[in-house]
């Protein structure tokens, strides 16, 4: 028996309160029909006996105490799923908006998902070659990982995400058809969403992309559902259809702000900066949906993008994200301003899963040595620079001067890389050695001697012969 409840008792922001509703279940979906014939979706968020609180996705504008009929749907928020979702565009709540009609569902799944049992997880170890030196060598992306991009307004995080999506060799040996992208836009501008769509189109992967778009002016309640819908789709593609899924979510900060707005309208006690106390658990329920499950072929890899308000990494959103995700790629405004792309701030960036996914059998035996040494050397560059800013570069010790030179090379050659430049891991590693060749051998304290003999010395010779070649060329040019 389906009952419609007429009228509401209270309206507060996006919440409405109904009284005398028996038989409602926690987090159940409701449809609200207004007397002008339009319908809205809502979800039960709180129940006290027969009194229920509903959040209305499309907002409460136009709702009065009398003009509605509310119907309980008898199930929590679900997403219709079928292999046909590939190539389609949905709104934030999972309704198709590309004019191609509804999805004929093979399966419906609760968008909240259920946690993966830790014993059923497979520890991720397979390296994803993104073709970007900094990421591949220093903060390797692993299939099944969640690696966010910490950015700020105006920096090139969207380009970076597109480049990763385009170049990433995410598939295993079985073939390339198993790879797809789920894209969730939360509170982004129309043109940004369009940029992603166009880029996917240009690189010819659009038919393998599922897009969920909640634009900046769409209702915030829908924004809270967007990542959950996207991940439900991703889990379906990965664990039921066996695909390797890369989930790009932008912008998590907008998501958190929506959550804050929603929480304060419910009258909850705020935690830090007005964000609800359960922000950590809430973010975890999104990020933890990345991974690989034993016995299933597919994987879910997450690449969330968030803009740090005022570039502040200690702001609750990046802070809590960093505690949940397996590392982060942090962008730097200074590098961005000096025209370096991708402006990856190397030192605070990190990938927690890389240690077991690199080295012999995965990438190359010298990988961990190079990356450790580059990190250590670059952190010395920073010390030398701060010293130089006080006493001037001229006064630095000869070793510090070498570090300054190394730092410049590192940023201009290694970090800096074109938007269309796709480097193989061998190229990137060799480049790393060639840069380290600018430092004396005794400074390389993170690498053992065998490794130095095998890679450092040849790299040094390569650099020297190239320099000799250059000088020779110059001389011939001058003579001519």
């Amino acid at each position, binding site marked *: 028996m389906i009952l419609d409840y007429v009228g509401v008792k209270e309206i507060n922001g996006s919440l409405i309160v109904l009284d005398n509703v*028996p038989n*409602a*279940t*926690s987090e159940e979906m409701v449809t609200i029909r207004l007397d002008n014939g339009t319908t809205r979706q809502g979800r039960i968020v*709180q*129940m*006290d*006996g*027969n009194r229920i609180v509903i959040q209305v996705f499309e907002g409460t504008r136009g709702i009065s105490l009398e003009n509605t009929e509310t119907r309980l749907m008898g199930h929590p928020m679900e997403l219709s799923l079928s292999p046909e979702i590939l190539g389609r565009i949905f709104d934030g709540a999972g309704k198709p908006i590309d004019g191609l009609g509804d999805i004929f569902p093979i399966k419906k799944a*609760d968008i*909240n*998902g*259920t*946690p993966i*049992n*830790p*014993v*059923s997880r497979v520890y991720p170890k397979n390296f994803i070659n993104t073709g970007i030196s900094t990421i591949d060598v220093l903060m390797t992306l692993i299939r099944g990982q969640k690696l966010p991009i910490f950015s700020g307004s105006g920096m090139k995080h969207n380009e970076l995400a597109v480049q990763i999506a385009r170049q990433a060799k995410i598939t295993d040996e079985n073939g390339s058809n198993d790879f797809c992208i789920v894209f969730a836009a939360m509170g982004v501008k129309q043109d940004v969403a369009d940029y992603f769509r166009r880029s996917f189109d240009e690189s010819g992967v659009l038919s393998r992309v599922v897009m969920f778009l909640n634009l900046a002016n769409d209702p915030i309640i829908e924004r809270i559902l967007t990542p959950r819908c996207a991940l439900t789709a991703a889990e379906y593609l990965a664990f039921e259809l066996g695909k390797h899924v890369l989930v790009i979510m932008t912008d998590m900060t907008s998501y958190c702000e929506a959550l804050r707005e929603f929480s304060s309208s419910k009258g*909850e*006690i*705020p*935690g*830090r900066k007005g964000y*609800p*106390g*359960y922000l*950590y*658990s809430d973010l*975890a*329920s999104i990020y*933890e949906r*990345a991974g690989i499950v*034993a016995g*299933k072929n597919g994987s879910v890899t997450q690449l969330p993008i968030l803009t740090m308000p005022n570039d502040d990494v*200690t*702001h*609750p959103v990046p*802070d809590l994200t*960093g*505690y*949940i995700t*397996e*590392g*982060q790629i942090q962008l730097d405004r200074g590098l961005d301003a000096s025209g370096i792309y991708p402006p990856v701030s190397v*030192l605070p960036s*990190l990938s*927690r899963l890389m240690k*077991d996914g690199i080295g012999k059998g995965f990438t190359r035996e010298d990988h*961990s040595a190079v990356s450790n040494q580059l*990190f*250590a050397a670059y*952190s*010395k560059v920073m010390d030398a620079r*701060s*010293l130089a800013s*006080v006493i001037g570069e001229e*006064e630095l*010790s000869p070793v510090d001067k070498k570090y300054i030179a190394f730092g410049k090379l590192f940023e201009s050659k290694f970090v800096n890389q074109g938007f269309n430049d796709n480097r193989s891991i061998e190229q990137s590693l060799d480049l790393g050695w060639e840069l380290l060749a600018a430092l004396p051998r005794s400074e390389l*304290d993170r690498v*053992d001697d065998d490794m130095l003999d095998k890679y450092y010395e040849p790299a040094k010779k390569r650099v020297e012969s190239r320099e000799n070649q250059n000088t020779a060329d110059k001389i011939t040019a001058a003579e001519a």
Partner: protein
Amino acid sequence: MNNDVIFGINGPVITVKNAHSFAMGEMVYVGKERLVGEIIGVTDKLTTIQCYEETTGLRPGEPIEGTGAPMNVTLGPGILDNIFDGIERPLKEIAEQAGSFIARGCAVPSLDTSRLWKVTLTVKKGDKLQGGDIYATCQETQIIEHRCMVPPTLSGTITMVKPNGSYHVNDTVAELTDNDGNVHALSLCQRWPIRTPRPVKKHLPINIPLITGQRVIDTMFPIAKGGAAAIPGGFGTGKTMTQHQLAKWCDADIIIYVGCGERGNEMSQVLEEFSALIDPKSGRPMTDRTVLIANTSNMPVAAREASIYTGVTLAEYYRDMGYHVAMMADSTSRWAEALREISGRLEEMPAEEGFPAYLPSRLAEFYERAGMVETLNDKEGSVTLIGAVSPAGSDFSEPVTQNTKRFTRCFWALDKSLAYARHYPAINWMESYSEYFPELENWYNKNLGPEFVKYRKEINKILQEENSLMEIVKLIGSDVLPDDQKLIIETARVIRVGFLQQNAFHKEDTYVPLKKQELMMKVILYLYQKAKQLVSASVPISNILATGLFDKLIKMKYDIPNNRLDMFDDYMKEIDKAMAGIVTA
């Protein structure tokens, strides 16, 4: 009598109207699916329950069933080499029953009830037993003997004993008649409420270090068996890595590793690594002495709150058998946040940063369950607690870090800038401290000789001096320093890179015995003394550095295998020779 029904639902918090039979802390089953919950508030009108499972789909009017007992765990053989969720449900069995994703209302017994244990009964009819006395033993894993003890609340005379043989966990193996004539069946397991510390005969002084094989910890900031330590650090500073290293290498008999609101992939890593790792002492897989409690960040928040107590109760149980137990909790901040979240749902008045005002007392209760004790059966056992703290915004002034500092005596502060330079373990030697060292000094003197403490002091002094010199270096560069100060900076570099920094992935360096730690200090200090003599004889420091000895010492952690400690003598000789060479030149 049972007609209590759900009234309100707000996330994991459930209310019941007009129920009078429930006690505070009682465990209840919620709804038709019988989700596990605990009573956390009682008034005459409203009873509040926190539910340990997802509440989506529950509806008002569903029944609530009390169990009459507080939230408790089952203690018995089969705990080791197992992985549980926050309320001691075995995750492997849940996966077998429900698949790769965790379903709700899984009714699985905590311990495998079908497994047979080869039990030796150690009592005979007529024996008088007190609480805590051992009545049966069985080999739980190849290295750990499980000792079944009379529950601490019971005492009396044994009136029935079964013969030695194979029994299930729930089989009665003996009967105990107490002074009032009541007969109690003793099986291989017992239950204990997680929020009540298990009783002990008395607390003993803390004076044995927990050897971890990590130089910066064993030498600089040691922790005692029965002590409590905090590892605070922002994300990416290596809290989890440090915890893993301690779990792998510390010399406790039993390891309880609680993943409290952390990453799922990390737990699968622990599972994989620990089963592949062989314990050097016993030659058996690490899992033989390990219990994992995994309540990842996306699992229900109330169970996260309980997981810490579940862990420490298991630890106390093994302590009572006379074992040294170390429990790692990663991370206590997530636990504190779970407290905050539930407190918020109860609309309690928040204190600092939204945390409830009772946060400090809860932290104190937890850390006070550490200790070196004489157990009820006159054995010596200990529980060592090592809690990671994840301060918001890496700011150590936040309430969880500050309050944890008050109740732990060992503080390993992880430092972002060290982590950025990939100096691991990123324990900052200026900010960290261990109040246990004075109490452990005797042990070091007795077991390693008086030099160890002396070396440590000298190493400390050089690091302190370097720290104040660095203030100057930052302003004017190191070139202008006089040679003796340059020597300090160079020696400190050897200490930092060659000694304090330790490579967890290097097979020799991941665990370093104390003797090698001492010899490393010895060689470094020997070089320092020799060089100092030369410097005071006006030999330019550049000549001394040119010998390459400093760089050689930095790499000795890799070059000298743990079983070739005689090589240190060669190093000393080489130093002598090189230094003599400088003088004659």
